[in-house]
C-alpha cells in the first residue's frame, strides 16, 4: 500500500515536474505581459482617489487656472483661493495638464502617493512684437 502510494506520488511528482518545466519553458520565451498588466490594473483600481490641490503664481493664489485630464475634456478650474478638487477619481499614471493663459502649462503625473498638488505656475517669458499686413500699394518718395 505504502509502496503503491509512493509509486502514485512518484508518478504525480513526475507529471508536476514535467508541467513545471513546460510552464517555465513557455514563459522563458514569452514574457508575462498578461500577468503584469493584470496586476497593474488591480493595483490602480484600488488606488483610484480624489485629487485636490492649490495653484498659485508669483503673486499668490491663482483664480481660474484650468486643470484637465490629458486626452479628455474632463476638468475643473481653481476658485478665488487657487484651490481645486478634481471632479473625477484619478489613478496612478494619469496626467493632469495645469494651465493659465500666459503661463507655462505644467504636466503632473499622478504617482502612487499623490493626493494633493501644490504648484506655482511660471510666466511664459515672451517678447511681443507684431507687424500688420496691408494691401496699401507701395509709393516711391519722389523729390519733385
Amino acid at each position, binding site marked *: 500500500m505504502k509502496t503503491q502510494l509512493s509509486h502514485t506520488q512518484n508518478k504525480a511528482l513526475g507529471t508536476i515536474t514535467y508541467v513545471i518545466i513546460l510552464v517555465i519553458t513557455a514563459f522563458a520565451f514569452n514574457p508575462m505581459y498578461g500577468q503584469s498588466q493584470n496586476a497593474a490594473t488591480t493595483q490602480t483600481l484600488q488606488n483610484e482617489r480624489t485629487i485636490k490641490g492649490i495653484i498659485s503664481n508669483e503673486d499668490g493664489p491663482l483664480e481660474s487656472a484650468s486643470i484637465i485630464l490629458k486626452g479628455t475634456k474632463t476638468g475643473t478650474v481653481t476658485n478665488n483661493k487657487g484651490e481645486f478638487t478634481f471632479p473625477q477619481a484619478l489613478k496612478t499614471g494619469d496626467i493632469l495638464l495645469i494651465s493659465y493663459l500666459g503661463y507655462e502649462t505644467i504636466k503632473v503625473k499622478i504617482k502612487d502617493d499623490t493626493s494633493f498638488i501644490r504648484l506655482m505656475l511660471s510666466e511664459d517669458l515672451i517678447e511681443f512684437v*507684431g507687424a500688420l499686413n496691408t494691401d496699401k500699394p507701395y509709393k516711391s518718395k519722389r523729390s519733385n
Partner: protein
Amino acid sequence: MKSLRYIIIFIFAFQSNAQISDFDTINFQEADRIALECKNETLDNLPQLSYKLTSKLTTDVERFRAIYMWVCGNIANDYRLFSKNMRKRQHFKNDSLKLKQWNNQIRKVIFKKLLNENKTLCTGYAYLIKELSNLANIECEIVHGFGRTSTVNIENFTTPNHSWNAVKLDGKWYLCDPTWASGKPNPATFRFEFDYNDGFFLTNPKLFAINHYPVDKKWLLLESNNPSFKTFIEAPIIYGKAYAKLSNHNAPKKMHNNIKKNEKVVFKFQLLKPVEKEDIYLLIDNGNRSKKIYPKSTTIENQSLIVEYEFEKSGFYDVHFLIGAELISTYTFKVKS
C-alpha cells in the same frame, strides 16, 4: 548603373520644399467645420479648447488645421496695442534694461487683452497656435523675425517686428503666418477686419522668404541657398494676395531695378491655380499718373507665368503687378536712354 544615375537625378530634381501641396489628398472641410463649430469657445481653458478642436480628427495636419483656423477666425489684431508697442520698442531699442521692463509690463496687458477681448498682436497669434498644438501633441514653434510689407520702413529693421509659426507634420517642418492670414486693418479707419487668406497656411518656404526673414536662419526651411539678410531687404514687395495666387515668385529678384530703354523686363511667377491671361496687367506710375498696361507677351505653361515688358521712355516708375485686380507685387524701375 546608368539607370541608377537617372533615378538619383530624378530624386534631386523633384525634391520640393515642405508646403501645402504635400497634403493634396487631404480635405480640410471637417477640420474647418470643427473650427467654426467652436466659434464661441473662450481662451480661459486652453487644454479643453485644444481637445475640442482636435479630438475628432485623425491626422496631425487636420488637427493642426482646426487649431490654425480657429485662431485665424477668432483672434483680432489690436492695432492700437501694436503701434504703442512698436513705438516703445523703437524708443528703448538701445536700452536693454528699459526694453525688458517695458516688455514685462506689456506682456501682462497683452495676455489680459487676449483672455478678455480675444485681441492680440502677431506674437499672440503665434503663441496660441503653439500652445494649442503642443497640447494636442503636435510640435510647433514660434518664429521671431522680420516681416516686410509695403508700409514697413526698412530703416527700422534693427529689431524683429513680426512672429509666425513653424509646425512639424509627418516628420517635416512647415511654415505659416496666422497674423497675416487672419485679416487686415481697414485702410481708412485702421480697424481690424477679418479677411482670411489661405495662402499663409503651409506656404512654400521660397515664397515665404521673400517677405519673412527669421532671426534664426534655420527657420527659413530652405534646403539650400539661404538668402542673406541683404537679399531679403532688396527683394520686391509682395502683398497678401501674392500668397493666394502664387506658389513662388522667381523674377525680378529685386525691388529697385536699373535698366535701359527698350530692355526686356521679365516677370516670372509660379501659379497656385490657373489664371486667365486677360486678367494680368501692370499699373505703371511715373509720379504724375498711373497707367494700366496689358503686357504684349504673357505666357502660361505648367502654371509657370512669364510676362515680358519693355519701357519705351526713360524715367522713374513704380510698377505694380496685378492679377484680376488683385495687387500681387511692386517694383521700381529707373529707365535710362
